[in-house]
C-alpha cells in the first residue's frame, strides 16, 4: 500500500467522520480496466471516495472483488456454522418426531452454504462499495442510548431533550444555536403530545424506579 493510497484512504474516513460533504454519495463506477491492471496480492485502492480491497484469488477471472461482499460471505459462513453446531444441543430428534434443534441446524448449514456462495460468486462489473456513514451511525446510536439512560434516571423531559439534541448533531454542519432551538421546540411539542394528549406512562422528572 503506497503512501498516497494510505493517505486517500484515511482522508475518506476522516471526511466521513466530520461529514465535510456528502461523503460517498458519489461512489462512482470503477471500471474493469482499473482493477485488472496489476492488482496482485492484497492492496488497497481508493477511487472517487469508494474504498476497495482488491485481491487476486488464485488468479481467477475475478481479480477484483467487493470487500464488503467477501466480508459478508465470511461472516455468514462463520455465523451459520456456529448456529448449526450450537443448535445440536437442543436435540435433533427423529425424522418422525423432530426435535427443537433440527430446524435451526439445517438453517445454520444453509446459511453457511449461502455465505460460501456469496463469498465465491459475488462480483460485479462495477465493483463499488457503499459508503459507511460513520457520523450518523455513531450519533444516532448514542442518542438512543442516551435516551435510555436519561429516561431511566432523570425522567421524560430530560430524555426527550437529550435524544433530540444529540441526534440533531448527526447531520454535518450542525450548528449549536439552531440545534438547541430545534431541540427545544420539538421537545416542547412532543411533551405536550405524548404526555397530555396520548397519556404515555412516563414520569416527567425523576427515574423510572
Amino acid at each position: 500500500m503506497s503512501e498516497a493510497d494510505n493517505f486517500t484512504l484515511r482522508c475518506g474516513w476522516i471526511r466521513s467522520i466530520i461529514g465535510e460533504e456528502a461523503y460517498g454519495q458519489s461512489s462512482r463506477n470503477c471500471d474493469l480496466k482499473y482493477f485488472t491492471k496489476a492488482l496482485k496480492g492484497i492492496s488497497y485502492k481508493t477511487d472517487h471516495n469508494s474504498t476497495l480491497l482488491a485481491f487476486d484469488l488464485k488468479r481467477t477471472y475475478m481479480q477484483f472483488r467487493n470487500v464488503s461482499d467477501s466480508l459478508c460471505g465470511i461472516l455468514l459462513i462463520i455465523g451459520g456454522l456456529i448456529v448449526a453446531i450450537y443448535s445440536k444441543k437442543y436435540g435433533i430428534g427423529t425424522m418422525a418426531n423432530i426435535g427443537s434443534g433440527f430446524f435451526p441446524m439445517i438453517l445454520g448449514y444453509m446459511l453457511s452454504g449461502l455465505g460460501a456462495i456469496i463469498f465465491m460468486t459475488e462480483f460485479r462489473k462495477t465493483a463499488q462499495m457503499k459508503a459507511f456513514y460513520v457520523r450518523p451511525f455513531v450519533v444516532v446510536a448514542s442518542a438512543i442510548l442516551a435516551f435510555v439512560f436519561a429516561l431511566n434516571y432523570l425522567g421524560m423531559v430530560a430524555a426527550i431533550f437529550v435524544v433530540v439534541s444529540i441526534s440533531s448533531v448527526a447531520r454535518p454542519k450542525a450548528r449549536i444555536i439552531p440545534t438547541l432551538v430545534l431541540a427545544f421546540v420539538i421537545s416542547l411539542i412532543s411533551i405536550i403530545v405524548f404526555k397530555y394528549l396520548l397519556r404515555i406512562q412516563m414520569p416527567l422528572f425523576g427515574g423510572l424506579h
Partner: protein
Amino acid sequence: MTEILANMALGFDVAFSPLHLWYCFLGVFLGTVVGVLPGIGALATISLLLPITYHLSTLAAIIMLAGVYYGAVFGSSTASILLKLPGTPASAVVCEDGYAMTKKGRGGVALFMTAIASYVGGTIGIILLTVFSPIIVKVAIQFGPAEYFALMVLGLVAASTLSSGSAAKGLAMVVFGILLGLVGTDVNSGIFRFTFDFFVLLEGINLIVVVVGLFGVAEVIATIIPSQSQKAQSTKVTWRKLLPTKDDWSRSWFPMLRGSGIGSFCGTLPGVGCTVASFMAYALEVRVSHNPARFGKGAIEGVTAPESANNSAVQTAFIPTLTLGIPGDAVMAVMIGALMIHGIAPGPLLMVEEPDLFWGLIASFWIGNLMLIVLNVPFVGLWVRLLKVPYNKLYPAIVLFVCIGIFSINNNVYDIVLVLIFGVIGYFMSFFSLPPAPFLLGFILGPLMEEYFRRAMLISRGSPLTFLERPISASFILFSFALILISVLCWLRSWLRVRRQYKTEQRRE
C-alpha cells in the same frame, strides 16, 4: 355475484363507522405526506406506527396501516413530477415524462392525470381483490401442513430471487430471518432456543422491535447524509393548469387499463411488487407506442401507465397476504405482523372466521381511494409546499418517536436497546447490500414454517418425500427449484460476460 355484493355490503357496514373512517383518513393522509416527502417511505412510516397499533382495535389498526401504504404510492408521484425526486421508488419511472411535462409548463396536467390514473389502477386492483379472494380461499382451505410448508418455501424463494439484487443474498437473509424468528421458547418442547439466558428473549423477539430497528433506525442513519444534497424548490400549481386537454384523455385511457393489468399481475407475485410493475408498464408503453421518441419528452402515457400500474399492484398485493397468509414484500409482512400482534392468525381461515375484518378492510380501500383523490387533486398546492420541509428538521423527531413508541409497548427500556441493536444490524445489512425485505419475510414465516414442517413429518411418519408425493406441494417445491435454477443461469450468463470482457482486456494489453 350476489355473494360478492353481500360481502361488500358487510364490509361497507363495518367500514362506515366514524372510528374506521377516521383511521382510514389518518392512514391515507399520513401516506400522502410520506409519499410526497422524499426520504421517508411507506415502510418506515408503517413500522413507526406499529407501536401505536397496540392501542387500537385490529380493524382500525390494519385500515390505518394499509391506508399509509396505498396513500404513499398514490402521493409519491407529486415530487417526481414537480422536482424529479421520487417520493418512493415506485414512482421513480414517472420522473422521466412527468418532469418533462413540468418543464413544458404542464405539471398541473400531469398531477391531475396521475391522480386519475392512480384511482383507476387502485379501483381495478380492488375489484380483482374482491372477486378472486374468495376463490383462492376456497382452494387454500383444503391445504394440509405439507402444502403450507411448500407454499411458504415457494413464497420465500420467489421473494428473494425475483427481487432486484443477488439471489444468494436474498436467500441468506431469508434463512437469517427464520433463525431470528425461532429465538425464544419452542412451543413443542418448551426448550429455550438462542435466548442465552436473557429474560427479555424468552418470548421471542418482538416483531415491532425488529421492524422499527430495521426500517426505522437503519433508514434514518442511511438517509441523513444523502438527504443533505437535496434541495427542494417550489413550483406554483394553479387550478387552471390542472385541466387536461381532450388529447390527454384519449391518449391516456388505454395505457391506464394496460398499466392496471400489468400492475395487478405483478402485485400478486411475491418479491415483484409495485416498483417493478411501474417500470414494466412504462417499458410496455414505449414498446407499443407508434412514436416511441415521444417518451422522455413529456408523454402523458409515460405518466399515467406506470402510476395506474403501481396503484393496482398495491391493491392486489393484498390477495396472497389476506387469502394465504403469505406476504409478498416487506410492507405486507408488517401487515401480517400487525394482525399477529392482535392475536389473529393469517391464512385462508381469516376470511371465514373474521369476515368483518376481511371485508371491512377491502371496503376501506374503496373509501380510502376516494379520499385520496380528494386529498391529491384540490389540495395539491399544499403538498407542494410540504416539500420544503427539510429532512434535517424531521429526523430528530423520528428518532424521538422511535424511542417513545417502543417504550410505550411494554413500558420497558430494554426494548429500546433491542431496537438499537436491530438498527445497527439493519444498517450493516444495507452496507453489505443485504436486502432487509426477505429477512422480515423469513422472520415472520419462520416459526410457522417450522410448525408445518414438524406436523407434515409427523403425519408422514418421518418421510420427507411427503412434500413431493402430494401434487400441490410437489408443484410448489418444483416451482421453487425452477426459480433457483433460473437465478443460477442468470448468474452464469453474467459471469461469462465478465470473463469475456476480461479476456479482451488482457489481449489488448
